[in-house]
């Protein structure tokens, strides 16, 4: 059993005795609102997709599937090809890549997840380091890290970074939330 807040893109959960792969998660909380997790799911039986929302502490069954450490190799439209240490290649459908697309770069490590022998998704490490390719010029003074400005990494994915972060800096990003953690 896991709680919704612990479920990540690439995990597979059971609902009404059917397996669903989690393509995307979004944690949200504001004021007195219950913390929630919005999930984009895809049925492993019918390939149909849906969106659902759970309270962050809702309990759910996660299926433990086979996984392999792989690195990203190349894109063969519409499949993303991953390779293990023995040079075996595994294709993952573009729409099953989930948040991995936000951070994708050659040689990126991740776990490829298998269901009945087929590669169905990838699970990212909890954090990645990426270079900031665009942001407004850095501002000295505020070192609290609470005031954020928009920034982009090479994939075009936008995150909020503290105002002291400059273009070219490397930052650590939490892949579960898409949030800045620290400057590397």
């Amino acid at each position: 059993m896991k709680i919704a807040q612990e479920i990540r893109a690439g995990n597979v959960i059971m609902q009404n005795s059917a397996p669903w792969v989690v393509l995307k998660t979004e944690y949200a909380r504001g004021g007195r609102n219950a913390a929630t997790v919005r999930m984009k799911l895809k049925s492993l039986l019918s390939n149909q997709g849906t969106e659902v929302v759970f309270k962050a502490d809702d309990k759910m069954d996660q299926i433990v599937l086979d996984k392999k450490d792989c690195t990203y190799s190349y894109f063969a439209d519409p499949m993303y090809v991953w390779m293990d240490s023995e040079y075996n290649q595994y294709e993952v459908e573009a729409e099953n890549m989930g948040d991995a697309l936000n951070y994708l770069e050659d040689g990126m490590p991740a776990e490829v997840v298998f269901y009945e022998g087929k590669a169905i998704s990838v699970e990212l490490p909890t954090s990645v380091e990426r270079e900031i390719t665009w942001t407004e010029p850095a501002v000295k003074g505020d070192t609290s890290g609470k005031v954020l400005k928009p920034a982009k990494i090479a994939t075009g994915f936008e995150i909020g970074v503290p105002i002291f972060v400059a273009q070219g800096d490397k930052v650590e990003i939490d892949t579960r939330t898409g949030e800045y953690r620290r400057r590397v």
Partner: protein
Amino acid sequence: MRWDIFCKVIDNHGDIGVCWRLAADLAGRGDTVRLWADDASALEWMAPGGARGVEVLRWGASVDAAPGDVVVEAFGCELEPAFIAAIAARTRARGRQPAWINLEYLSAQSWVERCHGLPSPVLSGPGEGLIKHFFYPGFTPATGGLIREPDLIARQAAFDRAAWLRARDIRWQGERVISLFCYEPPGLAAFLAELANDTRPTQLLVTAGRARSAVRRVLPEGSRTGQLSIHWLPLMPQPEFDHLLWASDLNLVRGEDSLVRALWAGRPAVWHIYPQHDDAHLAKLDAFLDWIGAPSDLRRFHAAWNQGGEPVLPADAAPWLACAERARERLLAVRDLTTQLQSFVQHRAGARAGLMGSAPVSK
């Protein structure tokens, strides 16, 4: 339709206040409502006359009740397992699940639009296999809107400010009128000092309860108040609270329900947001100020009021008034919450739908 609305009072009056407004509004449109509350005592003064079509019941009695057509758990309160089991039993018996709505708190944050109307499969317990739906009040067409009774705007248009103030023994000769409904805002002492020392006289209408206590702590009986005249108000029924907001030039409100009513009043308003220990409320406040397009001095006032500092009123109130009027106009273009909720349960949430059949509500 027959509605079951569940409310647990955490603290203050907002939870039961919103639930009552929704219940009364639904009943006014011809539905019947059972309002299950763990503490309905505030309704004695909030809604002393009750409402035709609304039955207020003890929370605990729900364990023996059969569910109606729609079940609303307000603000994420957890239903009794026996009542959930009754929902499941009715679903099996009729082949159709009663609509089960989780009515959430109000927020202008962007994720609300993305989560509004989404199904939430129940994965364990007596309701396993059933579907709830998250329903978010909000400020934009992609949300559930705000409660706005069908006659609200007409009542407001017919309101006589001078007569209302006179009836409360408030001698009003054109002075600035400010209503105060708050918790214990950090900026209160500085603000009261500003009003007392201002060149312009102010009539401050202080609501009963925490606002009154907060003012009394800052200004004990016998304090000199200069240009500031203070009137202590009694506990008010909801329609009277609307009148208070309509009679004021500036409304200092708190929580959720009174903010919504202040928005409908179309007068400048300052929101004392319910504080959270981890400051999660500040992002919510920012999102609201972004949505109304608050002028910079109104933002500064909110910061001082909620976090400490000196809240300063503008020399020219026109930009604040224009901001409030624009917000009201925009909200009038959004379908009200009760209409949306009725439509939602008829067309989506009440359908016999598993996870696959419950696509997101169209935006």
